[in-house]
Structure formats: structure tokens, C-alpha cells
């Protein structure tokens, strides 16, 4: 039907295309992931994608929403990919399925579906998994050339789906703790940051291999900035705060606190800065609010990493700041044209 009201023209942009470009922006990071850790991550991503779309369709049907109208918006796919990239690739198949299904069904649809969920669904999925299945969440792959044995793709598939390893291979031989985790554990053993970083799993900036993956996400993030899909506020405030907080502690006590760049390129910092915190639905809608939101997340991430009981803090920092969004938005309303005084 032809439009009955103005404007009669519109920018040829759609939610589906925005989400698609965010997915594309993840590709450099994923490619480097595959290069350094093998193709197991692609299996996780495929599993997450199927689960996300399946759950999305099922929930839309249960909620009596037009399935075909919504399924193409690519938002569920993005949730699945972000979750897959946050959990160990060598985790059993059901881990990513459970996490994704929870993210889509509970964190997204029970709150009203696209546009209405207060918490980042992928991070809810991650939080559920790390609390419910902490052991399975530690099966991080050793990057190429570091472990005593490397699993072939078929052997990886066999482990993911059947839980079977080749004879004489233990799980410890093919997996390892993340650089962030290792740092935390070893610091508790009274080793210094300098000593720890001499271990072969550490590279130039952070973890061997994983620093390159972070670099890939940084590249993708810069594309999102250039394509004006995100603004600079969230990445800048998050990375800035993380850098500052890490820098202060590092300067004060370099033997116990890692350098700021280590924090930038470890764990989910880059993914979080450009892809997770920038989720428009669960983030603030004012530029000033974005700065506060992301700075809060940066500080919380650092505090959890340095003093908390989890090796990385991205997910919990995101969720905690998600709670604050309505308040942040209310108190950061920009002045209206012709109104010098601020709004409510």
C-alpha cells in the first residue's frame, strides 16, 4: 500500500542491513581466530547461528508474531555469533546451544523481543554458562605451535560432539587457561607480572594468538565507526577508562599489575568495546550517557579482572551497566533547541 503520510522518501537503510554489517565487521577477528586456533570456532558459530535462528522462530511463533517479518533482521544471528566468540571453541556442543537458546528465549523474547530487552542477550547467555558450567568454560584452545599436541579438525569435531579425545591425549594437553586467567592464578602464587609474561603463551601485547584476534576485532570496530554504525563514544570511553585504570595500578605497582595494553588486547575487551557495549538496544541513547555507560563498564571490567574472582569482567560489567541505562539516560538528556536549561 502506498504511504498515506509524509515523509514519502526514506534512507535505504534497514535493521537487517545494519546487523549484517556488524556481522561482517566480525569477520577479520574470526579469520584471525581460525588462523591461530584452528577452525573449531567456526563450529561454535554454526551451532550458535542454528540455535539462534531456531529459538528466534520458535519464540516468535509462541508469541504470535509474524516469523518471516522478524527472522530476517539478523539480530538473533548477531547474538549467537557474539556468544560463540565469548566461550571456548572446544566446549561440548550443548554448551553453546544452551547458552544461545537462553539468550534468545529468556533474555530477549521474554522481555518483549527485538528492541525491548534491557540486558545484552549474548552476555546473559555467557553469564548463565560461566555460573552453571564453569569447568566446561575453561576449555580454551592452545594457539598453534604452543601445545605438545594439536588436534586435527575431525578430532576437534569428535570432541565437541562426542566428548571423545584421541587415545593418549588428555584435555589438558590441548587446552589451556586464558592469558588473563593464567596471570590471575600465578599472581596468587606470588609470581611477578614480569616473570609470568615470560611464559610462552604471552606474546608482544597480551596472549599469543588471542592478541591478534583482539586486533582483528579492533579492525572490524574501526570499520563500524567508519560506516557510522556506531559512534566513537562507547569504544573511546571504555578503552580509555580501562587504559587509565590499568595504567594507574601498573604505574603504582608494575610487579602486580599488568600494563594497560595487556588489558586492551586480552579477553573480550576489544569485542566488548566495539561489538557488545555498542548494542543500541541495551545501551544509552544520549552521547553523554554513552560516555558514562562505557566508562563504568571499563572501570568494572578492570576491577573484576584485577580484584574479582572471574578472570574476565566484560560480561558482568556490561550487565551491571545495562541496569544503570534508564537512569543514565534520564540524567544526560541533551538541551533542546531553544531551551537553554536542561530537561527533566
Amino acid at each position: 500500500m502506498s504511504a498515506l503520510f509524509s515523509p514519502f522518501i526514506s534512507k535505504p537503510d534497514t535493521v537487517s542491513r545494519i546487523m549484517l554489517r556488524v556481522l561482517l565487521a566480525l569477520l577479520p577477528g574470526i579469520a584471525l581466530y581460525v588462523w591461530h586456533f584452528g577452525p573449531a570456532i567456526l563450529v561454535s558459530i554454526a551451532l550458535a547461528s542454528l540455535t539462534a535462528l531456531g529459538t528466534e522462530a520458535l519464540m516468535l511463533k509462541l508469541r504470535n508474531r509474524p516469523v518471516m517479518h522478524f527472522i530476517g533482521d539478523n539480530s538473533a544471528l548477531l547474538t549467537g555469533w557474539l556468544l560463540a566468540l565469548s566461550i571456548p571453541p572446544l566446549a561440548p556442543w550443548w554448551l553453546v546451544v544452551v547458552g544461545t537458546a537462553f539468550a534468545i528465549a529468556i533474555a530477549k523474547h521474554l522481555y518483549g523481543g527485538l528492541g525491548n530487552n534491557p540486558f545484552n542477550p549474548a552476555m546473559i547467555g555467557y553469564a548463565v554458562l560461566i555460573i552453571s558450567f564453569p569447568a566446561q568454560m575453561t576449555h580454551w584452545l592452545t594457539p598453534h605451535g604452543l601445545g605438545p599436541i594439536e588436534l586435527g579438525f575431525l578430532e576437534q569435531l569428535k570432541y565437541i560432539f562426542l566428548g571423545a579425545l584421541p587415545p593418549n591425549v588428555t584435555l589438558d594437553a590441548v587446552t589451556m587457561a586464558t592469558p588473563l586467567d593464567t596471570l590471575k592464578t600465578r599472581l596468587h602464587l606470588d609470581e611477578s607480572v614480569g616473570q609470568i609474561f615470560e611464559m610462552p603463551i604471552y606474546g608482544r601485547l597480551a596472549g599469543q594468538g588471542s592478541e591478534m584476534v583482539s586486533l582483528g576485532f579492533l579492525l572490524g570496530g574501526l570499520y563500524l565507526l567508519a560506516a557510522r554504525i556506531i559512534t566513537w563514544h562507547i569504544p573511546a570511553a571504555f578503552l580509555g577508562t580501562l587504559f587509565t585504570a590499568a595504567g594507574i595500578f601498573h604505574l603504582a605497582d608494575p610487579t602486580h599489575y599488568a600494563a594497560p595494553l595487556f588489558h586492551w588486547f586480552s579477553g573480550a575487551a576489544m569485542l566488548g568495546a566495539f561489538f557488545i557495549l555498542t548494542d543500541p538496544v541495551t545501551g544509552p541513547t544520549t552521547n553523554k550517557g554513552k560516555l558514562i555507560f562505557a566508562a563504568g563498564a571499563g572501570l568494572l571490567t578492570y576491577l573484576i579482572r584485577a580484584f574479582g574472582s572471574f578472570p574476565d569482567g566484560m560480561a558482568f560489567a556490561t550487565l551491571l551497566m545495562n541496569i544503570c541505562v534508564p537512569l543514565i539516560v534520564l540524567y544526560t538528556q541533551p538541551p533542546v533547541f531553544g531551551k537553554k536549561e536542561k530537561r527533566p
Partner: protein
Amino acid sequence: MRTLYQFNGGIHPPENKEPSTQSGIARAPLPSKLVIPFRQHAGAAAKPMVRAGDRVLKGQLIGMPDGFISSAVHASTSGTIAAIGAQPIAHPSGLPDLCATLIPDGREEWITHAAPSTSLRTGFDYRNSDPAELRQQLRMSGVVGLGGAVFPGDIKLRPGNRKIDTLILNGAECEPYITCDDMLMRERATEIVQGAAMLRFMLEAGEVLIGIEDNKPQAIAAMRQAVTESGLPFEVVVVPTIYPGGSAKQLIRVLTGLEVPSGKLPTDIGVQCFNVATAYSAYRALAHGEPVLSRIITITGNVRRAQNFEVLLGTPVRDLAALGEALPDTDRYLMGGPMMGLPLASTDIPLVKASNCIIAASDKLFPPAPPALPCIRCMRCAEVCPADLQPMDLFWFSQSKEFDKAQRFSLFDCIECGACSYVCPSHIPLVQYFQFAKSEIRAREQDQQAADHARERHEFREYRFEREKQEKAEKLAAREQAAKQAPAPSANPADAMQQKIQAAIARAREQAAASQPKNTENLTAQQRAEIAEIEARRAHIHELAKSAGEHKKE
């Protein structure tokens, strides 16, 4: 170089202005019928001064300004008034309004200005005139803002409590497709500049800035030349092309750096703004005694011949569409541009002072938007909002009918430019939500006022009853007092009653005697038979109607 300022937001939609600027302004031929609305301006409708059957001359006053904010309406050509009545007009409500239907006689016979009845004068030497007299001439010439708001010009020219530092002529014309101001500036720059001088005189304004967007180099050149030739100290300022940069508040911001405070008028900050076409019509009215009988209108879009025409007010849209040779797949017409234009219900609708552009539209030209998705709060709408609003929040409040919140978040500062709807990736018709919320709030305020009024009346009524009761009681008390003092009359109450009864009986008898026998009494046998037949027929029809009614119900 003048320092220019910016407003936040704005968009750059495809301009599509080239097609209608290929040839100059042409004069539209005389239509076979004109429908002239009595309300072509903001404010009260003009009072009809003619009746059906009257012969009118070109320029003759047919609608007298009625009220403070009102303007005159004239016969666009000579001919006969065929009717005065409600006709469909271009209005979002779709409701008809009072119009004069004028059948032109083809002679284009003008009024004589000398005649006192016309109340128009020619050849004002404005510098030696009383500004009040000039304003009256503008009011009687029907000069209103031709940029679209059609606010009566004389009101905007009244001296306020603040000196006008800057008079701005708006030649920005920021909306896509529309080129009527562009062409007017190219071809009639001298008259516009003269008009601006007259407006400045009436306002006692300081500087005069003529703002034109940089996508109109020919108009800029023409206006610059006209200003130079006039020797007047006006400045043509080239402003960046951005939508809605031609909105008065936004243009004032760009040119002066001032923001018109929310809920205030430009004059409150010493600025007044007129469209270039308004300056042109002011010049025609004051220098030539020529009321506003026509305007330049762009016909463009899905047409073979996009062009600007000088069209007599009251010309049906159909005539202009025919001049533009609308393509066969045209399925509707818009009045105005693609951002804020109004779809027209029919091509019978007359072109009026507010009509700047007619766009022939088809689904190919303006593809229907895909079905809306939920808002993902991407902020694109906030980024482009020229009023610095947060449209996604206003949308949320409008949708959930939290109107008080919408109002607190400055809903009424929305200028409905449509930039937010334009960029929305979820294709939510945001402007319509805002219009809905605004009208709901206005309706509630009216209801509230009505309720307050009713309550006041009720309270007064209660008070009045109370007062009357008290007065009665006082009177009674006073009478009792008097009765006690004076002795009662010694009449027997039973006798009086008996007399009354007798009188009533006598009256009843008289009436019975006076009444004539009915003509249905003493009928012949034949008459009776006829009556019976009619009754039977009536009964039959009644049966039929009853069964048909029941059938319908089924």
C-alpha cells in the same frame, strides 16, 4: 565573509530539483472553473462578500478579513460566482471548507483602483507612508507568508516591544523537488529586493539578510545583482544545503547564531523572517495595488514536463497536473515536498496560497516503506533531529500514551520535519506518532478546559440554589411577619373553591359546543370502501417492509 552557524542534525535527501528548473516560469492558462477557499491563511476565515450569481472583477475583494489574525481573499479573475459552499480542500483532516466557485468569463477584467469600494490603492510611496496604512493595504491585499505557514503578513509586521535587528528573507528552499522560490529569485529578483525594502521599512529593521542554499547558484547570482543594482545595504548569504535548513528557526540559527527560545517568536530575539515570495507579493501589493491572485507552483515528480507555473489561486490541481503532463502510472498527488507534503484526496482540490509544489507520485517514484520493525534505539533519529529532541523516547511515550512524559520531553518543540522518519532503519512513522500525541494532548487540554468550565458552572448553580433558598426563606419570614401584624381577610375558603369548579365546568361545555364534527364522520359507503382498501394496502406495505428489515438483519 559572514560567520555562519550550525544547527544540530539535518539530512541530505536526494534533491531532485533539476527537472523543474530546466525552463522558466510559465503562466498557466485560465481554468474553466476556480474554487477559492475563504481560508487560505492562518487564522480566521475571511467573511464572504459576494453571493452566488454575482459578477466579480479580477482582484475584487470576495472575502473580508474577519478578526485580528485573518486576511483578505480576492477573485482571481473576472467572472461569475456560481456558488458559495463547502468544497474539498487540501487539509490533513480531509474536511471540506467554505469556498467560492468562480466561473471565469475569460475577459480578465480588472477592478478599478480608484473606486472606493476596492479599498486598495496603487503606487504607494512607501517611504512617505504611514506603516499602519501599509499594513492595512497588505491585509486587504491578502498578503500572507507564502513559505507554507500562510501567516498574515500584516501581523508579522506590527511593531513589537523589541527592536528588530535583523530581517531575514528566506530563500533557502530546503525541501527536495520544490523549486518555486528558486525560479522566482532567478526571474523576479528586483521585485523581491524592493519588497524586502518595504518590509524593512515597516519593521524598522536593521540589517537585511537573504539566505539562499548553495544549490541555487543562479538564484544567488540574480539576487546579488538585484541587491547591487538597488544600492540597498542588503546581504545575500549563501548557506549550506541541508534539510530542514529552510525552517525559519533553523535558518535564523545559521544566519545569526541565535536560537529562538522554545515557545517564543523570532521577534522576541530581534529577528523577523519572511519567505522571498512573500516579499515579492508585498511589493506587488504596495507598488501596484495588486492583491495576491496567483503564486508560483512547481509541478514535478512523475511528470513528462516538470516546470514552474504562475497559477491563479483556486485553480484545481487537475489543471496543473495536466500542464505537467503527469505520466499514466501516477496514482496520487502530493501538495508540498516529499518530506512534509500532504497527499491529496482528489484532483478537484484547489491550489491556494500555501501550495508551493504539486508532486505527481507513483509507487515507483516513492516506493512504499517496508513494514515497521521495533525501535532498536539506534539514535539515528536523535542524530538528525534539528530540534535536538530524542525522537526514540518521544516515540516510546507516544506509543504507550504517556503523554505527560512526552510533553516533558519537549514533544511540542518538534517541527515535524520528518528527518527522523527518513533515517529510521526500522521504518517507524515517527512523525505520525508525534502528530497523534500532540492532537491527543490538545484534545485532553480542551476536555480539561470544558470540564473546568462545567465544574465552575455547576458550583455557581449550587451557589445560586442556595442563595435562592435563602432569599425565599427570608421572604417567607418577612411575609409571616407581615401576616402576623395584619389580620387575615374574612372570606370563606369553601365558597371560593365551589365557584372555581363551576367556572371550569362552564368552560368545558363551551369548548364542546364550539368544536366541529370530524370530516371522517358521516361518510358515504364508497368512501368507506376506499379507506378500507388504502388501509389494506398500507398494512401490506408494512408487512413487506418488516420482512425486508428482518431479512437484512439476517
